[in-house]
């Protein structure tokens, strides 16, 4: 099909939108409400172009034969500017342009707009008391991207448009604060927002305070997914593994010890594989669901009380490590646990919520997202890319390739299968990779024979896909669910942007990390062997249960 684009004849494929054709031809059209992988809703009218003399949103208009498209006429520019100014008036005027990195502010700067002729429509109360996800509706420009993420990716719709016309706004039901709703804290809305009107609760100040306090022994641990994404915050290509520099940065920030959440992940696998084998033997609630994703847990607690007995009782890796720090490590070092502060660097906003759960006590004091950690490093003027690589501290710094996999969808399943198979059968796996659970398909599944029992497993990532898998959950013995698409590497606390292209690079990095390690099975972690011997006792035993397992509650809608 042929069209005319800014005076040039262009051949193009049927079914594409004007925006896609423009992108294919390197013609810039600014967009705001449009997001990759979503159905265009054409709310913001920033992407207007002239089609045969009429203004049309390019993101939602499909090309037709012989269309005459102009992207930069006076009419287009004037209308675009006005729409931008109206939005900018709603967004804080104080957030103005040059210094701000908001997508909106960047476009406004690119358009050369220096002054805003309009006044904001309204003043709203803030919603900032939540532990994980907070909102400033005064910054919101009603683009609807968060609503799309929450509804179409996550199938939650904790926020939606309410009212109409000039009163229209994005809000949880009955204008409640988000943390008093069934929001699962996944933070996918944060990744979508072009103006930081939804963000994570900031805990950097508290952490800085503790770092400056000589009486506190401040321990930091980093999640498996951070080393594959943190580098992006400092200009590294997506998929750059920055483990050594990440550890060095934590030391430069003044943390007393830098431990590895991956050790906690190995511990989770040892306990969880044991729990699975137990459940299969005793026929207690099957399938068993993984429990390391706090967004998924909160989903079950709100929407699926019937599945609570199916959740593994294992604490998540950073909580397991937290409890080891405040018991085993404290004892060994002769430090009063009250003087220890544990900070977890996580790709996740729901972990902030998790760490405040009553059932989990004070084992983890603060959770910082990947973004917050990067912010700390920048605040301290640490030149991240020039740092010399360093190793995690003893004794909680040794981990296996299985733990590395936790960052990618299917990784917990693969790690658990390696250990469950080998510990239950006493045999070695010929091939460690479980290709059935790798990759980014919505739902993955497979089966394996363990002592003549066929164990069927399923994996889903992103709550929309998870809900689909739940339709047939009874077909399985073991199911891994991660609330975020792609798994933790796509978590709501990760660097922005987090697109599929970027996520796939991060996943690749994680599989490379596993492949490059000599120890690749959690049950072979030498440090954990010692800790079970010296401190924890039996796998799944009384002490292990007391320290490493937890329970769940029924929550109302």
């Amino acid at each position, binding site marked *: 099909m042929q069209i005319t684009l800014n005076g040039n004849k262009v051949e193009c494929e049927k079914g594409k939108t004007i925006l896609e054709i423009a992108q294919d031809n390197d013609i810039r059209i600014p967009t705001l409400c449009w997001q990759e992988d979503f159905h265009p809703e054409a709310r913001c009218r920033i992407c207007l172009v002239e089609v045969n003399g009429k203004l049309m949103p390019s993101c939602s208009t499909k090309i037709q034969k012989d269309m005459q498209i102009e992207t930069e006429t006076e009419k287009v520019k004037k209308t675009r500017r006005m729409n931008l100014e109206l939005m900018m008036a709603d967004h804080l005027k104080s957030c103005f342009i040059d210094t701000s990195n908001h997508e909106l502010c960047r476009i406004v700067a690119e358009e050369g707009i220096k002054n805003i002729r309009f006044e904001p429509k309204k003043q709203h109360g803030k919603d900032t008391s939540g532990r994980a996800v907070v909102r400033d509706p005064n910054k919101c420009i009603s683009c609807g991207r968060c609503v799309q993420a929450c*509804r179409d990716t996550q199938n*939650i*719709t*904790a*926020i*939606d*448009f*309410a*009212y*109409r016309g000039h009163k229209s706004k994005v*809000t*949880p*039901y*009955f204008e409640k604060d988000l943390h008093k*709703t*069934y929001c699962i804290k996944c933070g996918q809305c944060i990744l979508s927002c072009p103006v930081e009107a939804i963000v994570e609760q900031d805990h950097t100040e508290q952490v800085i305070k503790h770092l400056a306090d000589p009486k506190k022994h401040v321990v930091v641990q980093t999640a498996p997914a951070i080393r594959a994404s943190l580098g992006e915050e400092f200009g590294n290509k997506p998929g750059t593994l920055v483990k050594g520099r990440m550890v060095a940065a934590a030391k430069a920030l003044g943390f007393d010890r830098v431990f590895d959440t991956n050790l906690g992940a190995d511990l989770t696998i040892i306990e969880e594989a044991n729990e699975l084998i137990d459940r299969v033997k005793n026929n207690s609630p099957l399938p068993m669901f993984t429990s390391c994703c706090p967004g998924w847990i909160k989903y079950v607690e709100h929407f699926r009380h019937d599945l609570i007995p199916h959740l593994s009782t294992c604490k998540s890796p950073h909580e397991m490590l937290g409890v080891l720090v405040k018991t085993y490590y404290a004892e060994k070092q002769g430090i009063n646990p009250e003087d220890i502060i544990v900070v977890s660097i996580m790709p996740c906003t729901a972990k902030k919520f998790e760490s405040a759960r009553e059932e989990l006590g004070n084992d983890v004091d603060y959770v910082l997202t990947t973004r917050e950690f990067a912010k700390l490093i920048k605040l301290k003027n640490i030149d991240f890319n020039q740092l010399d690589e360093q190793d995690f501290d003893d004794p909680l710094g040794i981990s296996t390739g299985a733990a590395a996999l936790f960052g990618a969808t299917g990784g917990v399943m693969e790690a658990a299968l390696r250990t469950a198979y080998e510990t239950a059968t006493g045999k070695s796996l010929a091939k460690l990779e479980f290709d059935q659970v790798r990759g980014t398909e919505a739902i993955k599944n497979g089966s394996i024979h363990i002592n003549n029992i066929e164990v069927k497993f399923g994996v889903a990532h992103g709550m929309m896909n998870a809900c689909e898998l739940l339709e047939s959950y009874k077909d399985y013995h073991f199911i891994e669910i991660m609330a975020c698409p792609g798994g933790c590497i796509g978590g709501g606390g990760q660097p922005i942007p987090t697109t599929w292209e970027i996520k796939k690079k991060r996943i690749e990095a994680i599989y490379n990390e596993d492949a490059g390690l000599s120890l690749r099975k959690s049950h072979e972690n030498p440090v954990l062997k010692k800790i079970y011997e010296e401190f924890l006792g039996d796998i799944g035993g009384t002490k292990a249960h007391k320290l490493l397992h937890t329970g769940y509650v029924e929550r109302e*809608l």
Partner: protein
Amino acid sequence: MPDKLDKIIESKKLLLPILTEIQDRDGYISEDNVRQLSKKTKIPLSEIYGVATFYSFLTTKPEGRNIIHICNSPSCYVNGSLNIIEFIEKELGIKSGQTTEDKLFTLHIGSCIGCCDKAPAMLLNGEVHDKLTEKKIKGIIKKCRS
């Protein structure tokens, strides 16, 4: 109560008619109703709230005995509806969407009610009052209060 909601859902099926029925029955749509409705229909609470606030004939707060809808669309606007609105707000001591403490009045400011030729106009409990003046309004309010 819950089985009555079941009946409404059963008979109306679609969200908007269900909400309209609840509005007619209770005079407003309560948080509790929205929650029950969400559990039964699996439509998310925030989505139902979005619909319940989108239509001006639905309300999510309890209403007073007399419900005033003042039009603020173009014809009424150019004929001074703003002054009329300000006057009523002062007389009743409430703003749009609010209900007086004695539960006598609820005020809504909304779109055209089809009386553009006799603007400014309003509805009192569904009945049209047009060519409004401050004096007329005083009379209407007095009548409701007595």
